[in-house]
């Protein structure tokens, strides 16, 4: 597969933040996820769990609850605001102060007309959902103590509220409480400790299920307010509950990192009376589970250990399909690293700062697999803190390393970098065109003369850069009236083409010489996750969330022969079963037939000149090929050359001098930085 000098970079200290809450929209099959830094991520469960959109966070915004109402997403948090998110522009649409102190919980009724929030001051406030805003309707009876959890009865007439030591049931019409259910405190010494009802569920048969800090999941009769059943599932807290759509299954997440499933099943076959029985225990987390959701086929959980876990329920899925495999999503499905190919520099994007590094150097020579001595250590050139409260959503570094740009929801900054010997001077470009407010994606042209910034409605603003000033050139706009945000952008090496892809799966290619739309790639059902234009052949290579690879000739505006052959042959099943998307595509300028792409667990060089593998051949054959004689090796080799030496890849890129940059972030380093989990007695310790 060719030999490269590899820069193995491990100094990108990327640290995801803890998952705080998730909400699943079963109509759209989208999952909204809020992290403790206030960012909101949208995953498309229909499209191979692809992370479609990211709304960047904000300092001081801690989201406690997310709520889908139709296609609208609401969030509320401890800063006391209710926010509706603009999912087309990836920013908060508006924010309304609830005037009840920190908001702990939010729930919408099944009709989608009212939003109830539980506040620190003990009030449950109802907001009416209007066409494009929400409006305060009224307060329910005020209680002593905070409202921790809320759940609407499906009929929309009653609300169950979990508080400290008790559960209250409110009549939504009158606003009065109809039941006051006291929850048992822990037994034993901790009896004086108050018990927090972390989560509550109100089923259509008027059963209330509560999870509390005493480690119990309790089933209550909502008519009478009496206890039906107690399941003690942990010594620690039961933090969250989630009910399936058909109300036959409830899952509970605990501080120990276990998910316990309860099912509503008849005790004997011929009888109709059912009861809630504890069934499965799933352990996929090491830390607190803060958020749970149930899809049709799986349990989705997330918590302090920052991973989103999709655990399929075996009875709901076909065995041995892709759907039946467990998924852990620990890394973002987009690149946080920009690479200056000519200058050998890396830009790392963090929510609150940027880091610019110069790669180390080595002049040693060695065999394949050797570690070369480092002559010059990698060097951190710039640590750039962002301005304002909004987190950085995108950044870019020009390939010469002379320009740097980043954007948050509220501002866009461009910097000029100058190097003389060991000194770096960074100067902010003062006058930016007014139109350059914020961007979802930023990209410099390869010759560093232009900056491309995506704007709302899939438009691209082109700005020319020169030593003295920054000049607005044009706005490229697709005529289709696409509203989705652009999440991928690539400018070709020769400066002629610019390709953009939005989350509506549309890919547009613009001719930069003419500054107009060149063509539209036929829409494929799955969202593209990475794309690039080959410098030699001007073919656009796209990789989609379902792992399909397409090659589109820009000259003839059609799929290339190789792409058709690949589609006809079909990709190897092991290739399509990989569970992380390809996040970057690049080309080898020495060998135009080579396409280099990577996901989290491998990087792959696709040699277009070699035959494609069929289903029976060994896909991961690099190790076995090595031991074969030369002739046999040629006969056995196929187009997909996969390397798994480097794990948890954040970026793989080929520099100008044909050395490979591999940015790794071992997951162990992330887990080692997490706070310690709750103490558990382990057997035989």
């Amino acid at each position: 597969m060719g030999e490269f000098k590899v820069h193995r970079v491990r100094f990108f200290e990327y640290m995801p933040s803890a998952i705080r809450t998730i909400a699943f929209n079963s109509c759209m099959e989208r999952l909204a996820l809020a992290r403790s830094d206030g960012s909101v991520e949208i995953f498309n469960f229909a499209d191979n769990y692809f992370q479609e959109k990211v709304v960047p966070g904000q300092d001081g915004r801690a989201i406690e609850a997310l709520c889908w109402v139709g296609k609208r997403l609401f969030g509320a948090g401890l800063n006391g605001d209710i926010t509706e998110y603009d999912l087309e522009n990836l920013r908060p649409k508006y924010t309304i102060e609830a005037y009840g102190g920190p908001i702990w919980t939010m729930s919408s009724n099944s009709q989608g007309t009212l939003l109830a929030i539980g506040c620190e001051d003990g009030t449950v406030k109802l907001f009416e959902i209007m066409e494009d805003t929400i409006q305060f309707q009224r307060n329910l009876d005020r209680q002593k103590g905070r409202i921790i959890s809320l759940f609407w009865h499906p009929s929309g007439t009653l609300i169950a509220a979990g508080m400290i030591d008790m559960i209250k049931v409110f009549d939504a019409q009158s606003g009065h409480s109809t039941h006051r259910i006291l929850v048992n405190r822990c037994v034993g010494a901790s009896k004086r400790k108050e018990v927090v009802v972390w989560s509550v569920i109100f089923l259509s048969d008027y059963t209330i299920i509560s999870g509390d800090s005493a480690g119990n999941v309790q089933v209550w009769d909502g008519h009478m307010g009496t206890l039906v059943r107690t399941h003690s599932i942990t010594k620690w807290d039961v933090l969250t509950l989630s009910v399936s759509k058909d109300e036959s299954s409830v899952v509970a997440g605990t501080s120990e990192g276990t998910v316990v499933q309860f099912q509503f099943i008849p005790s004997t076959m011929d009888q109709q009376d059912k009861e809630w029985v504890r069934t499965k225990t799933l352990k996929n987390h090491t830390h607190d589970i803060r958020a749970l959701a149930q899809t049709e086929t799986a349990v989705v959980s997330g918590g302090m250990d920052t991973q989103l876990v999709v655990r399929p329920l075996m009875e709901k899925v076909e065995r041995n399909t892709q759907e039946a495999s467990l998924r852990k999503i620990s890394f973002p499905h987009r690149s946080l690293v920009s690479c200056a190919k000519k200058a050998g520099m890396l830009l790392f994007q963090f929510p609150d700062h940027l880091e610019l590094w110069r790669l180390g150097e080595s002049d040693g020579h060695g065999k394949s697999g050797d570690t070369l001595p480092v002559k010059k250590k990698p060097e951190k050139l710039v640590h750039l803190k962002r301005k304002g409260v909004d987190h950085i959503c995108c950044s870019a570094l020009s390939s010469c390393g002379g320009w740097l740009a980043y954007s948050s929801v509220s501002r866009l900054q461009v910097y000029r970098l100058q190097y003389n010997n060991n000194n770096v001077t960074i100067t902010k470009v003062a006058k930016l065109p007014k139109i350059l407010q914020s961007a979802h994606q930023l990209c410099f042209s390869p010759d560093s003369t232009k900056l491309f910034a995506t704007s709302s409605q899939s438009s691209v603003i082109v700005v020319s850069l020169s030593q003295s000033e920054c000049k607005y050139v044009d706005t490229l706009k697709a005529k289709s009236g696409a509203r989705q945000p652009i999440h991928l952008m690539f400018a070709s090496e020769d400066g002629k083409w610019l390709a953009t892809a939005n989350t509506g799966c549309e890919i547009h290619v613009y001719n930069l010489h003419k500054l107009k739309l060149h063509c539209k790639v036929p829409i494929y059902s799955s969202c593209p996750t990475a794309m690039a234009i080959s410098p030699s052949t001007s073919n656009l290579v796209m990789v989609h969330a379902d792992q399909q690879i397409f090659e589109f000739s820009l000259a003839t505006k059609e799929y290339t022969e190789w792409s058709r052959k690949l589609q006809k042959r079909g990709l190897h099943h092991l290739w399509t079963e990989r569970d992380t998307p390809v996040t970057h595509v690049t080309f080898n300028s020495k060998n135009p037939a080579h396409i280099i792409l990577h996901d989290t667990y491998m990087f792959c060089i696709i040699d277009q000149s070699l035959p494609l593998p069929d289903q029976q051949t060994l896909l991961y054959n690099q190790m076995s090929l090595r031991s074969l004689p030369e002739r046999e090796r040629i006969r056995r080799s196929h187009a997909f050359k996969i390397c798994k030496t480097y794990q948890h890849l954040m970026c793989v890129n080929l520099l100008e001098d044909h050395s490979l940059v591999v940015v790794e972030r071992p997951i162990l380093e992330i887990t080692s930085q997490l706070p310690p989990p709750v103490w558990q007695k382990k057997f035989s310790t």
Partner: protein
Amino acid sequence: MVGNSGIRVVHRGGSKINFREPVITNDSRFLLCSAGECVKVFSTSTEECIHDLQGHTHLVTGVAINPSNHLQVYSSSVDGTVRLWDFTDGILIKTFVIGYPIYSLHTSAKHGGILFVVVPMAKDKRSEVFQLVAVHLPRSGEQLVEAQELSAVISNVSPNPATISFGHEGEYIASAKSFQLEVFFLKKQKSYKFFLSANNKKGVQNTFTCVSCHPKEDCIATGHEDGKIRLWRNINQKKDYTYSTVHWHHTAVGSLCFTPEGTSLLSGGLESVLVQWRYGQDSQRDFLPRLGAAITHITVSPDGSLFCTSHADNKITIIQSCINISAVIQGLVKDGVRTDLMVDPRSKALVLNGKPGHLQFYSLQRDKQLYNLDIVQQEYIHEAGLEQFEVVKAAFNIDGSWLATVEERKQKDSELEFNLKLWAYVEKTQSFVLNTTVSAPHEARITAMCFSHTANSQTTMLVTASQDRHFKVWQLAEPAHTEDEGQSWSCDFVGAYHSLVPTCCCFSADGSLLAVSFNEVVTMWSPTSWELLTTLSQPPGAIRDLCFGRLSCSKYLMGTTDMNLLCCWNLLTCSLEWSTSMDVSLLLADPVSENMAAFCYQAGGTDLFVFKPSEPRPLFSHKAVCSGNVTRAVFSPREEMLDSCKDEEQWLNRSQLYFLTQHMDLMTFITKAEEDRLMASSKQLVVDESVAITPFNLLLGKHRQQQQEKQDTLSAERIQLPQGSVAIKELLHTPAHVLPSASFLCSMFVRSLLISTTDAKEASEPEEEEMDSDKEEEDSEVEMQTSTTRQERAASSQESAAQVLTKAQERELRMVKKLDRSWLSGLLDSLP
């Protein structure tokens, strides 16, 4: 060769009682379990064996109470029959011939007249595939019935009965094999199969080990190889089935059982802890720890009052009300036997390894373990793969006053820890007490150990031979310091010969010679002076066994070599007397006669030769005693001598030869005459069915024979209780709406009562009076009346029936009068 027509090899005691799960009868008084080729009936309260249900000709593989008659029991066997027994009397009622070897037996209360048995799929007995078959028992009065109506239920099941269980109301059968649970619904004739993943990642081993169905709900509990218990629900759904998992055991779950009410689930395994899970509250569990050995089966009595656990060390524990161990039925422990078989000269008990780190004393006569002697005196940890101290050698001196034991623990190849312990028998406590512990008596493993044969305990010597090329002589010595408590053993002499490894040692019968074999050389030493007298090294080959002759043959020394030679040296001439070529695996001398027994391993089987050292012709030979090699055997002196005159039976007159086969079955040789005698004695043993028989009972029974006889006559003539009389029966059995008015019946009732009592009195003896007076608690007046009648009767022995009638009438009249009066008085009271 001598014929062996009269002598048979038989199983004699020590059979496995933990082979299949035991059964507790409905009244919780008896426990039935399979034991080799018979079924044993034990009393749950006294632990005593009440009956041996003998009849099967091969291993009994299942015992189950007849669901339609709880006083009968079915037993199945590999011999292809199912037998129905009356276990209270120990009578065989019926034999059903199935025709296939049966590996387990199941019954269901909902399926009367049907037995479920597990038989091999193919007729071939060695086939590894089994199926569950329903047997429709033919209704026929005959003793021997052929059951031909077989119908297959589930194919490919495990022969282990723990993996098959009947669901509630007998609606379905759950069967587990390797990674698959199959639930077969009998009514719908439909089966559901549930699979667990076969890969063993992260220590997960999903293999099913046992199954139990909830008696009231549709829930199946399964145990797994990695100690997990899964509770399956929604089992009538192909996809929507679900299970919950609980995990406490750290190794495979050995057995699972729901209590009859279904309120709790019992589980056990290697940890030898009985875990009681509260059904529905998974986190709540109770433990009954320290049950001694790994739990293999758990059963609960039908009323739920008794739990019963079988253990890997051939033991059944009966547990009362969840916490009290009320009885322990201990069989012969045969796992991990490393010592030779020995007979304790005092108790005549068989001695071998018992519980881990113990020696067991097992009475062969009573087929019962007497006691365990703790040798290692360390807590045994129930965990697989842990190296712990084990008793590897033991020896008694001639009168049983000293016991020497060697225990060792091997952790790695290099370091072997071992101790020599000497135990003195204490008359006062009737047990062995540790006298001396010698840690690391040699530098390497001890290969042989023997006591000298002198009865005098002062001069008793112990010789240990070791791989460190020395043998040591130990003697009881006075303490060096006066403040020490008593005598202890110390090393007296260390011997060696050309730095060869000693393998065997043996004292002559009078204790004047010690023979120690060094590889190919036998050295003779004088115990008095410890000088090397002579060496014998004629035949080639390393010595395997050495044995001095006894009594008239004491001038001979027998030895076996690994060149397949049996040699006999004459010690007077120091030359080889005779030798014969045979592969002797074990050479054994009878302590009470000059006979010797040699077990020869030949072509997969073992032959026995009994001979006298003086003549090279065998007294008795038995071809193919058992398959496999015999390495442990012992001569056990008889309590009563036999007086058989037949040539080939004479060697059995004074002692009996027991041996352990490769499969750890204890076998012995029995003559025809002895067999007949035993059969006769077992038939004599007639037991009152209402009392569980105990030795105490038998003991008292003899003394109270007279009384018993008397009582028997009494009970025969015991007065008829009122319920028994015809009139009462009629009254009680006729429907109420056809009965005449109560006033009419009243007099009749009373009359019948009176007549019957007087009748009874008439027949009974005068002494019985007091007894009966307790029974009859009527009016004092009536009682007086009877006594007067009796006095009258004493005067004139016979009375006419007419007179009795008048008496009765009189009494009736009197009662009427009395009644009237009371009523009148009531009236009178009310008048003013």
